[in-house]
């Protein structure tokens, strides 16, 4: 009985990890996109600052 339960848990964990890695890749892409936008906006405002009298 105990062995059966352990196998169940291990399988559940593998399935959960596989699903999370899929979400994580999408999350990474989304976060990196946000990061690029933030850096672009920062550089834009910095350019304004440098170019104004």
């Amino acid at each position: 009985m105990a062995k059966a339960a352990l196998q169940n848990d291990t399988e559940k964990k593998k399935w959960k990890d596989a699903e999370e890695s899929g979400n994580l890749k999408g999350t990474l892409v989304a976060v990196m996109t946000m990061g690029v936008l933030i850096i672009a906006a920062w550089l834009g405002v910095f350019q304004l600052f440098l170019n104004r009298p």
Partner: protein
Amino acid sequence: MHKYEKIWLVFGIGALIFFLSVIGVSAFYLGNQPPSCLATIDPDKVDQTAPFNEPGLKKVEGKDWDYELVYVAQAFSYTPNEVEIPKGAKVKFIVTTKDVIHGFEVAGTNVNMMVEPGYISEKVATFDKPGEYLVLCNEYCGAGHHMMYSKIKVVENQ
């Protein structure tokens, strides 16, 4: 640690170091400072305290800037109301307020600061382009806030 977590951390900490370095060089090497609240003054005695007892444009010698432009802000006007500055002049703005918090922005330039009672705000700017510049209050100060402005005219040298 997950591989993606490492990538995110490198990216995030790298961006932080870059931003802090730019600000650090700007502040410590180029001498850029926040303009507001460096020196203090008694707000009740502004009219008797130099240099605010004589607001306006004054030529100075021996300093990093050519002129000092002293403003007194109050609800709802700036003194002086109009100033003429020669083209190319490097001007130090020195501003304080007699009553409430005001803003002081020379539209289209980097002169943009808060003016708080009890404090003096300062900013150095160079006017290379002739024309008319609007000085406006961008911090709500009461019923007449939207009418609070003055003019700077940058004129060609004779």
